[in-house]
């Protein structure tokens, strides 16, 4: 092989090295959670996926896990209540005793009529049934409460809050769809 042939081979090798990452890592046509970070509960109770950023790494608050999307002008503080109240979006993951469907029905019944409550049920990607209640807590605070069965006698309660209606927000729907019991 002459010097020209070796130069061409080197060029092809360089192009292939550059082209491999240029083609992308994850095909979103195959993976519905492409680009989302997997969070696994340290105790192994659950896992879910989220975009990080804009979501921050989770906070632990008295036995529950909280995630937030902070505003761009966030003040530096270590007070969890301030962080949650200032967040553009927040998610708290709790466990509650009882069946998920019954818990969702009881939760919806307790809401005032002015809360513009809407109920719906769905299924996560792992086949878990979810029971959701979307409502307005205050003029500037909207919630979406999701109940998923952890066991026949215990349920996970995902409490989403935001400054705008999120009952049909597709990005929150995708986070709920990624939720799994166990890790």
């Amino acid at each position: 092989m002459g010097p020209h042939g070796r130069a061409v081979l080197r060029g092809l090798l360089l192009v292939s090295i550059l082209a491999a990452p240029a083609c992308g890592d994850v095909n979103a046509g195959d993976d519905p959670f492409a680009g989302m970070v997997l969070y696994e509960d340290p105790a192994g109770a659950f896992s879910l996926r989220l975009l990080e950023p804009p979501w921050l790494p989770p906070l632990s608050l008295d036995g529950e896990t909280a995630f937030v999307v902070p505003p761009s002008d966030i003040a530096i503080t270590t007070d969890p209540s301030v962080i949650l109240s200032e967040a553009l979006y927040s998610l708290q993951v709790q466990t509650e005793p009882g069946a998920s469907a019954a818990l969702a029905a009881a939760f919806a019944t307790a809401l005032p009529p002015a809360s513009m409550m809407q109920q719906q049920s769905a299924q996560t990607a792992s086949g878990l049934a979810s029971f959701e209640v979307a409502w307005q807590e205050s003029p500037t605070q909207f919630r979406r409460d999701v109940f998923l069965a952890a066991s026949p006698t215990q349920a996970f309660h995902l409490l989403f809050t935001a400054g705008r209606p999120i009952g049909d927000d597709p990005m929150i729907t995708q986070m709920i769809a990624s939720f799994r019991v166990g890790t």
Partner: protein
Amino acid sequence: MKARSASWRVSFGVAAALAAGAAARTAHAQPREEAVDDPKMARRLGTRIFWNEGPAPRAPVAPPPAPVMAAPAPLATATAAPEGSAADATVYASRAAPEPAPGYSRPRLKLAFRRFDFVRVGAAGSGSGGVASEPFNSLSVDVYPLSSLIRLGLSTQYGWQSGAGLSGGDYFAIESASLGVQIRAGRVVPFAETFAGIGYMRRLQFDRSVPTAYWQLGVDLGAEIFLARTGYVSVALGYLRPVNGFAQQLQFGSVFVDTWSFKLGVGI
């Protein structure tokens, strides 16, 4: 007496013929006279006279039209006139070759609109359980510094999420280079080109602007259709792989899809 009379008649006839010929030539054009350069020759011969120069020659007789085109019906005089006569030349002069087709310029500059579907990373699709599709519109200015059989292009492109306004949703700005072939066969110029580009993409996720990287690879098959010598419209169907790269925690990751794109443009 008879002989003298006959001689006189011959002389008179020759003189009359010469006079008639001269008169006929004069009727067409005056002969051109020119001094001879050599003085000896000039003294002996006088000036040089060009008797054979007539009026400006006619345009060369055009050949009959190409066989693919129907020849126009000859004039009535053409059939009666002998070949090579003045009438024949007149007929063929009227059949002068048609105006040559105007040459079309090479594609040099194009303003184009492209539409394709990407994905809204982290968002659920409607009912399918997959990721949400996110249609993008884009405008680009393409220039072709090299445009012959091979064409080399540079494209500056701005794209925005369809339905969200130019900057209300996700958007991107990239610079691409293209390499392709084109066949300049007249009014329609078919082309095939591959392209690659890299730039910036703004993602709007949970009401926060997230800066990310965007690059794309693709192939376009289409045609430039000239409407005038230097103006054309362009239509192309393309395969496109848009890739969105971003930070995931402390790592860099990327997401891509394989999709089709449609491109329309106008250019010079």
